């Protein structure tokens, strides 16, 4: 399909492309092991989050929680904010994002361009200050609607109803699905769908492992697991460090010409791990993984050039996925 009534109707339906150069070689006569990339950067605002944003807004509308002219409040500094800003604009809502003042200028510019209002929390206060700011704003505006992507079932349902069926349609021989673990919506929704339809499907999570600053909790009890997360949907879960994520992100553009953000590098790292295991075990594998977004928003990090050590330093302390 190439014609849509509006940009919102053009959400999803992204291409699945083979990676003949990055797929591991198998010995003569052994079953094929192939990698496939789901290009989610081809969504309206350039990331997989468009699917969740659209479904969460629609669900709130259907439940009567959102009415024309209402204000949506979401504490996000990333792709979800950009997706929500676009959906809010086209559906007639105001969007207020709460984010730390030390995020990249690209994000601020993109959010403003799409019409979002931004409330900054002081960088010095870190996450605790962002908590305080968001709490305060929510308390002052009880009529504002927080969609809360970490616990909103419509986030996972977007992938159950779209990403999963698209993958199965385009790759009926799929053996592995690999995606990033953040809100967990992509893995929960797509994973549940594929588990229902494909016997023996492996659902694999790639979780970014950040620099130490990001784990600056005061104690373990301050930890957090998203309400959407259900470990029984996953088969395996990999932690991928900054260096491996950068290495794979660069490899993806150098070898296959796909220019992606760093979370995709982490996902590819896990996809390659399961692909190489399949080669070792002499098993057939069609490994589909998610390209969550393009690399444009991360150019200012400088992490696409220079040595891996420089790139690792540049991303230290940042939320690169």
């Amino acid at each position, binding site marked *: 399909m190439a014609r849509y009534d509006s940009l919102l109707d053009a959400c999803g339906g992204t291409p699945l492309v083979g990676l003949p150069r990055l797929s591991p070689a198998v010995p003569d006569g052994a079953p094929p092991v192939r990698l496939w990339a789901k290009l989610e950067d081809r969504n309206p605002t350039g990331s997989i989050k468009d699917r969740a944003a659209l479904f969460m807004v629609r669900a709130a509308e259907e439940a009567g929680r959102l009415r024309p002219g209402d204000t949506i409040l979401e504490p996000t500094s990333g792709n979800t904010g950009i997706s929500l800003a676009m959906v809010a604009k086209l559906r007639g809502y105001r969007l207020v994002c709460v984010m730390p003042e030390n995020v990249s200028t690209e994000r601020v510019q993109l959010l403003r361009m799409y019409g979002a209002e931004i409330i900054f929390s002081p960088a010095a206060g870190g996450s605790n200050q962002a908590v305080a700011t968001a709490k305060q704003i929510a308390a002052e505006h*009880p009529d504002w609607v927080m969609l809360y992507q970490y616990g909103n079932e419509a986030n996972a349902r977007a992938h159950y109803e779209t990403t999963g069926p698209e993958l199965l349609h385009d790759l009926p021989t799929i053996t592995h699905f690999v995606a990033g673990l953040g809100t967990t919506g992509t893995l929960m929704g797509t994973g549940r769908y594929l588990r229902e339809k494909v016997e023996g499907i492996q659902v694999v999570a790639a979780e970014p*492992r950040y620099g130490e600053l990001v784990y600056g909790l005061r104690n373990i009890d301050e930890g957090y697991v998203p309400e959407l997360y259900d470990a029984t949907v996953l088969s395996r879960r*990999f932690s991928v460090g900054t260096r491996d994520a950068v290495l794979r992100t660069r490899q993806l553009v150098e070898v296959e010409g796909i220019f992606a953000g760093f979370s995709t590098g982490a996902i590819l790292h896990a996809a390659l791990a399961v692909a190489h295991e399949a080669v070792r075990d002499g098993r057939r594998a069609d490994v589909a993984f998610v390209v969550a977004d393009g690399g444009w928003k991360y150019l200012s990090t400088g992490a696409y050039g220079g040595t891996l050590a420089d790139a690792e330093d540049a991303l230290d302390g940042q939320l690169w996925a």
Partner: protein
Amino acid sequence: MAIEVRIPTILRSYTGGAKVVEGTGDTLGDLLADLDSRHAGLRGRLVTEAGALHRFVNVYVNDEDVRFLGALDAKLSDGDSVTILPAVAGGAFGFAAAAAIAQHGAATAIASHAGRRAAGVAR
């Protein structure tokens, strides 16, 4: 040879500030018991009284989450690398969002189910 264990900032008070310590054990449970003999109290921060891994602790063996490898029964070999991390979804800001919701959940008309659970998480 031994097993290298990476300790998060938050737990280094138990290791005299060391980022990396060494231990031995055939399973993760054995390893934690071994570590506790030299770093008293560490195991108690990672394992609940019921004998399961703490909900907000993630442990990885060679970068793979042990909950999918048998949890405390996960098999270990000399030369393995174990990493312990607190659970923070989507990084610190994800946690910030969750905590903000938890404080104000139901009132802002979040799906009531999610709101209740978030409130439970933050308590």
